[in-house]
């Protein structure tokens, strides 16, 4: 709670939190704001934006409501971004903790795997993964997480290595605490803040990767995404560029919100560290 108060006190954090909260509301209430399947045909095809009050942002080539697509796309973008980041952080924490604690050969082996995932372009990996397994929302989430867990793993390991040598960990060992208890009660909570600060950046990257994947036609074909809307509008870019522009703006606003939130979070965390 104190962290939240510190976060709102920074201008970046306040604006970022505001944008993200608004987007969350849109994502949650999209079925209420625009009922029905956003992929169904509702009106005349290629209605220009700002002309018909029933379709404020116009319709696409097939007569689908652009505004409905953007509202429902919020849900996909946020859900995929958050889920992928959560999975990446979870994998990263597990690997980092194991490597940092076990040391020796286990550490060496795990860190080489981390290296391997860091030198392969994560977008190429996601592309290969989705094309092999088949496009669906869980597969896309996993594909993005696969390319993103290496950074949190490396950071967690570094944190564990530095915290392991602190006095309070030594004293916990002296009083006979079980190693697993030391790991989860003494080290993990203290290793978490920098990983937390990194997680917001991972969410932003995940949202952008999801958009790029669905732009290339590798997203789940049964849900509406901003990336697929941009790709759809690209076919008639010359006559109606607005079809590609609106979903892109939604994408930029979302990612800016995440970045501002992450800057606020970093500031709030560092100010907390300064005044214990």
């Amino acid at each position, binding site marked *: 709670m104190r962290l939240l108060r510190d976060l709102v006190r920074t201008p970046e954090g306040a604006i970022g939190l505001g944008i993200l909260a608004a987007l969350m509301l849109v994502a949650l209430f999209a079925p209420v704001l625009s009922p029905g399947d956003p992929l169904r045909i509702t009106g005349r095809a290629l209605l220009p934006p700002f002309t018909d009050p029933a379709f404020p942002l116009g319709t696409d080539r097939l007569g689908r409501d652009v505004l409905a697509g953007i509202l429902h796309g919020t849900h996909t973008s946020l859900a995929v971004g958050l889920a992928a980041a959560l999975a990446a952080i979870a994998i990263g924490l597990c690997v980092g903790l194991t490597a940092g604690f076990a040391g020796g050969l286990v550490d060496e082996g795990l860190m*080489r795997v981390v290296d391997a995932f860091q*030198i392969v372009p994560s977008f*190429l990996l996601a592309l290969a993964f989705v094309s092999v*397994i088949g496009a669906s929302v869980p597969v896309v989430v996993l594909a993005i997480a696969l390319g993103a867990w290496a950074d949190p793993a490396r950071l967690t390991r570094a944190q564990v290595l530095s915290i392991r040598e602190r006095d309070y960990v030594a004293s916990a060992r002296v009083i006979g605490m079980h190693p697993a208890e030391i790991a989860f009660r003494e080290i993990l909570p203290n290793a978490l803040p920098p990983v937390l600060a990194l997680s917001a950046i991972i969410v932003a990257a995940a949202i952008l990767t999801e958009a790029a994947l669905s732009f290339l036609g590798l997203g789940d074909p049964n849900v509406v995404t901003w990336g697929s809307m941009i790709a759809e509008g690209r076919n008639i870019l010359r006559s109606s560029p607005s079809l590609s522009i609106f979903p892109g703006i939604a994408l930029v606003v979302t990612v800016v919100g995440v*970045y501002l939130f992450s800057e606020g979070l970093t500031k709030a965390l560092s100010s907390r560290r300064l005044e214990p």
Partner: protein
Amino acid sequence: MNRAIRLIRRRAISSIPVLLIVIVLTFLLLESASGDAVDAYLLSIGGGDATVAQSLRQAYGLDQSMLARLWLYFSSLVTFDLGWSVAFGRPVLDLIFERLPNTLLLMGSATALSFGFGSALGILAGAKPESIRDRVLSTGSLILYAIPSFWLGLVLSIVFAVQLRWLPTSGIETIASGKAGFARALDIAKHLVLPVGALALIYMALFLRVMRSGMAEAWALDFVLFARSKGLSRSRIVLRHVARNALLPLVTMLGLQSAAMLGGSVVIESIFAIPGFGRLAQEAVSGRDAPLLMGIIVVSAVLVICVNLLVDLVYAALDPRVGASEPNT
């Protein structure tokens, strides 16, 4: 010089196990695909009977066990043979070497531009942290960095190619123009303005932010305080003391971003129809060409290793402490 050789040797030795892991994991991933290249090929030519499929599988060695094929891949890799692309009907390595120059040109120009402008603007912003100029540049770069590169590419082509008609929309050069020498170079440059611009603008924002935050941190350090107490001029402090130290994390960032840039080239090349490495990856995916995809991932890993080695050398040149007395492990 001795230091550089030591650095290269250490990097090369430590890269070998990592590369092996990349190859094995990619092999396992592509192995788990349902259907193989022969299925994809038969589908593309409209089907074929079982005996044809059988003989094709034998010809490509697809009827052997997984371990045998992994071993086969490794042993041919040693002779720089990356296998045979089913979709193109050509050796994978030839295809990759044919496409790679376009991508290297694209990435090289984008990196040079974004690094130059990003660090220059970062110095402007970091010279006076929290000033109006800093706030404008920081906010602008934050928004710029949030823009997906493929969308920025589309918007740029709407404005400059479709509306204003200043620049071509796609391709690497005018087809069958018969241009040569300088005229051809100019033609290629014209085609590259938009894709390079889209990539460079976004990475410029990143470099600006890294430079700016590095400088903001450096202002609080003792040697800057000392330089100020000596009464050095402000511009001298900014350039010689603050910016110079903030340049080091920027060089590190360059290495870290090389993998991301290579990945980003896939979408940019697809938008601007540039026959490059990234577009080849997309073609491999749509053609279900496992050997080609495998080769692309392996070559991109090698490329990233090379860039990182280069970055290490630059870093060592900038910071004399690096690699001076480290043991040979």
